[in-house]
């Protein structure tokens, strides 16, 4: 992995996650149109925890500020990645519920840090929270909570909501 020296790894991550990680990082950092644009770089993975740094450029502004919707999008993804750190194999995931609060605002090109925690997975429902912080000022920009359905395709249709 090209930038693995910059990433911290917590203890207890499953060997399978380490295998998933390469594909995941490639997806987030270079393959996915949106996240490539946001310049996401992984900084930390632990069991139930994932952190990324990024710089949101002028593509997502509303006036001088980065529109809050960007953090909704980012945290949704990073929270889902925090779920993966608890999985034994890569599984598809669907957002069931997502709440974002905007206690702050970030200027375009601000260096930001986004962290997500997966608190628990119960009956294929994962419970997560996340936050975005301006790395220069330390200001809290966005807070989020989300639940995800884990394994959207493997389940028979009857068991879905």
């Amino acid at each position, binding site marked *: 992995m090209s930038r693995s020296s910059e990433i911290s790894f917590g203890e207890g991550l499953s060997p399978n996650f380490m295998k998933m990680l390469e594909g995941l990082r490639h997806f987030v950092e270079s393959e996915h149109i949106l996240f490539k644009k946001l310049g996401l770089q992984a900084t930390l993975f632990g069991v139930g925890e994932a952190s990324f740094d990024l710089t949101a450029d002028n593509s997502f502004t509303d006036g001088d500020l980065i529109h809050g919707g960007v953090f909704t999008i980012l945290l*949704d993804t990073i929270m889902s990645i925090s779920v993966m750190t608890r999985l034994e194999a890569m599984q598809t995931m669907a957002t069931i519920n997502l709440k974002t609060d905007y206690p702050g605002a970030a200027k375009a090109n601000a260096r930001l840090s986004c962290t997500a925690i997966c608190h628990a997975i119960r009956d294929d429902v994962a419970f997560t929270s996340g936050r975005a912080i301006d790395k220069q000022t330390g200001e809290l920009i966005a807070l989020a909570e989300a639940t995800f359905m884990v394994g959207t395709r493997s389940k028979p249709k009857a068991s879905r909501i």
Partner: protein
Amino acid sequence: MAIPPLLDDSVTRIAARVEASQMFSWLGIVATPADDHLLYRLSFTEDHIGNPVLRALHGGVISSFLEACAQLDIIARVEKDVQVQPVSIHTSYFTSSRPQDMLAKVTIRRLGRRLAFLECDGWQRDQATPVARAAIGLRIIRPSSADAP
């Protein structure tokens, strides 16, 4: 406080606001009049896909679209010098989405002096079976004279 009606130039106002915002333009939002309300459209592009295997809209993209619609629905009703800032959005995803346009309708529950509370439904095939519904809180910042008690 009664909810003010849509202004006559609401559609052009919204178009101008979308054009001025990189974020709203990225979502490709278009508003059209429908009966007594506005119908909002997310113009689908590949950028809006979450997981390329599932080929569904990204959950966060849906949420930001519904939030943007709520902001625009207020902008379509108030004076131009009033600022509208998102405070909180809570979205429930009822069913999976497709790689297609999404439509949305906003319901204003309360538009006060300093805060607004709205609901926004987003659907793709059938309005009666929405893909997602969001509860949105917005901060309304009026010019100081209008903000007096």
